[in-house]
């Protein structure tokens, strides 16, 4: 059946109808044009579609949209403050943590969740937090460096404008 759902997405209230079987990634990408959340395996293995639901990193391909009723969803589009990148986003840019970029959204969300719960992680803790996010380009080292740099800079604070 189809339900009427309401949830906060990137801080904005959203109301829409969605069939029970529809997943969060489908609603985000297909209905709301929030295509920053990436679709790569639809099996919950690669982590590309990771989003925050009430602050917890989840695979949006395994999460039914209906289960987010009344909750708060954050996607990669919600990390920057307007055009000002978060410290983590800026660190990804500066550390060369982005190549093809297809895993980047999921990496950023997983790392955001890590830094929320553990603002000063060790390298091993960063690697463990990202183990569910696959990257085929970088070999992970610059991503790990970026997360560590952001943790030193204070991840939550916007530091630079997009494109700077």
């Amino acid at each position, binding site marked *: 059946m189809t339900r009427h759902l309401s949830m906060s997405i990137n801080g904005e209230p959203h109301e829409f109808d969605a069939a029970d079987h529809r997943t969060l990634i489908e609603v985000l*990408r297909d209905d709301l*044009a*929030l*295509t*920053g*959340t*990436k*679709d*790569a*395996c*639809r*099996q919950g*293995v*690669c982590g*590309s579609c990771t989003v925050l639901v009430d602050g917890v990193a989840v695979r949006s391909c395994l999460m039914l949209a209906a289960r987010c009723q009344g909750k708060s969803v954050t*996607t*990669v*589009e919600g*990390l*920057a403050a307007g055009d000002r*990148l978060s410290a983590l*986003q800026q660190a*990804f*840019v*500066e550390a*060369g943590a*982005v*190549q*093809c*970029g*297809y*895993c*980047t*959204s999921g990496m*950023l969300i997983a790392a955001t969740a890590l830094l929320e719960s553990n603002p000063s992680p060790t390298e091993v803790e*960063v*690697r*463990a937090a*990202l*183990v*569910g*996010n*696959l*990257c*085929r*380009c*970088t*070999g*992970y*080292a*610059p*991503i*790990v460096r970026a997360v560590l740099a952001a943790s030193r800079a204070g991840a939550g604070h916007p530091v630079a404008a*997009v*494109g*700077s």
Partner: protein
Amino acid sequence: MNDSSTSELVQRSRAVGREVRRGDAAEKVTGRYAYGMDLALPGMLHAKVLRSPYPHARIVSIDTSRARALAGVRAVVTGDELPWLFGSALRDEPFLARGRVRYAGEPVVAIAATTEEIAREAIDLVDVEYEELPAVFDPIEAMEPGAPVLHPDLGSYAMEGYYGGVDGTNIANHAKIRRGDVEQGFRDSDFVFEDVFTTQYVQHCSMEAHVCAAQVAVDGSVTVWSSCQSPYNFVRDLSNALGLPYNRVRVIATGIGGAFGGKMYLRTEPLTVALAMRTQGRPVKYAHTRDEEFIGAVVKHPAHLKFKTGVKRDGTIVARQITSVFNTGGYADAGPQVARNSAFSGTGPYRIPNVRIDSYCVYTNNPIGGAFRGFGVPQATWAHESQMDMIAHRLGIDPVEIRRRNLMDLGDSTSTGEVLVTSVGVRQTLERAIEASSYRTPLAPTGDPRVVRGRGLATMHKLTNSPTHSTAFVKMHQDGTVVLLSSSVDLGQGIATVLRQIVAERLGLALEHVSIAPPDSHYSPYDQSTSGSRSVFHMGNAVLAACADLARRLCAHAAPLLGVGVERVEYRDGGVGVVGGDRFLTAKAIIEKTFGTRGCTVHGEGRFTPPNTVPPDKDTGQTPKMSAFWMYATHVADVEVDLDTGRVKVLKVVAVHDAGTIINPEGAVGQVEGGVVQGLGATLCEEMLVADGIVTNASFAEYKIPTSLDVPEIVSLFVEAPHAEGPYGAKGLSEPALAPTAPAVANAIYNATGARVTSLPITPEKVLAALAATRR
């Protein structure tokens, strides 16, 4: 008239060789970058495909009536309606299976519907009756007389000149190298060693799966959007297949989430175009699911490599004979090139006077083998570097010393008869790797006698397919800023940023005043493809030529404004000045004074074809100049082996590359770090399992690529032997980054344990078996 001594756009510090951030990073970290998967067009339909469950079968009947009747279905197509064949080296593949299927996963029926869900439902309503045919899965069996012949029409297929399929057999290409007298060489050797090495199926696992969209105009013109590596390959191969003039096939390369060779040739596009021909102008999008990516895209060819090498007592190599067999599956795709290029690297970067190589690309009823970062060279490197170590140990020579004795230098000849005259940095990569890895300092023991450590090295060389062509346009706006039009695709490797750096450097502009347009065959000029580590060298040179052309035109406009003849002016610092004088006009001033302030643009065009490269002779593989350049690398791996479980842990990899001058240091390190990790995946954990033609691990849950916890410390270094013809001395880098990793690890395992594994991947089971063999 002399409005300033320097342009406001001048960037005094050099753009080449500087730490420059990639231009698309901000778009990517904000989720705004548009990939093929994100493509949405007005009225767009969604496609799904029914694939064969059988590796080899005759199609008896197809009933699509129930699917056609489903509400929302807009087009249904089967192979019977599509007379065309496509392919690059060899035009052997139908748009959808016609009459028979040659691998499990071959597309049989395609359906376009208003939603993906309806298309999927419609696929389930199709009934296909198959009659299974005898199948062959082992390429060596497939070469034997009496094996089922997959392509009885092989002799009639359109074929690119160099390649040689053997009519009436499953051999899609037989590449040869003949140099010296290999039999005499073996007679002149003190020892002759024969060893066999094998490699496995590896899938590219680009995070973005294959995806495309197609739209057909009333006049039959086709537009394709594709997450692809080569818009011009697609124009050529689609036009040739459909019999359409090239100007009526437009290919737009979308943003792309990784490729690694897997998106070099047509794959999802032909059937999508066939659907779009039936939708009255509505565009059709088709995206692979992850399991389709495993079973229905392309994979790295498994290879069987027999190496027979004759050496003198002191380790000098006298002769080598190689017979290698590449399993290309149901259709050739890039297989003919893979088998050929592998042969060209068969000797390794060593002087070998007597060489005979036979490299076969063979059809079987398995998934399709395609291009994969290195085109068969990683397979050859696995064999020659493993055998190099084995020979060293058999002769009691140090593994470094035997390589030093045989390495090529300037003035030496390759097995293909090319005398190397520039940029041979292989010896430097070896020496630097020895030094940087503290090779001679033994690894500290683990303290546990059941866990032992060892160190191994491997070196390699690779050519780039030549001659190939690149062209570029630069367009200067009236304010002096520039837009570059090039068909090199940024797959993530960073070519867009590197090309902008080259323009900025050549024209003396700030990097932010150089933009790059997305590749689109209707706008950006010809490029062979983004493959073979060729883009920096080829497109970089084309861009330099285009900049020089632009500068020439600006000089012609500026000379009368400066009141001197054109021979007395020069392009410098973002404008044109009088030679030897300080009279100078910015580009903006030149354009506005020439054309008025309402505006105009000034253009430059450039083409690059590597000078003097000649395709090799088909029967001998010989040519005076095979390749635009040769790339070199040496990797040293430190490993730990658990003698009880066979588990191998890589502790560290030192990777030293000669890619010529490095233009973007961050990007170069990124290529090597990422390449080494891909190499480690193929060394230790990755194998697409195919049982009687059926892929049994078609998901990321069952096919394991390295994660953030699986990677060791990687030290990447560059020796930068500048190439005389390279842009600022640059060559190429991407493919060598993963090639020496596997044999370096295998050689380290031998160093640690005395056990030799000759088959990839190096699983704990194989290590235990090799350990057991040492005790027998």
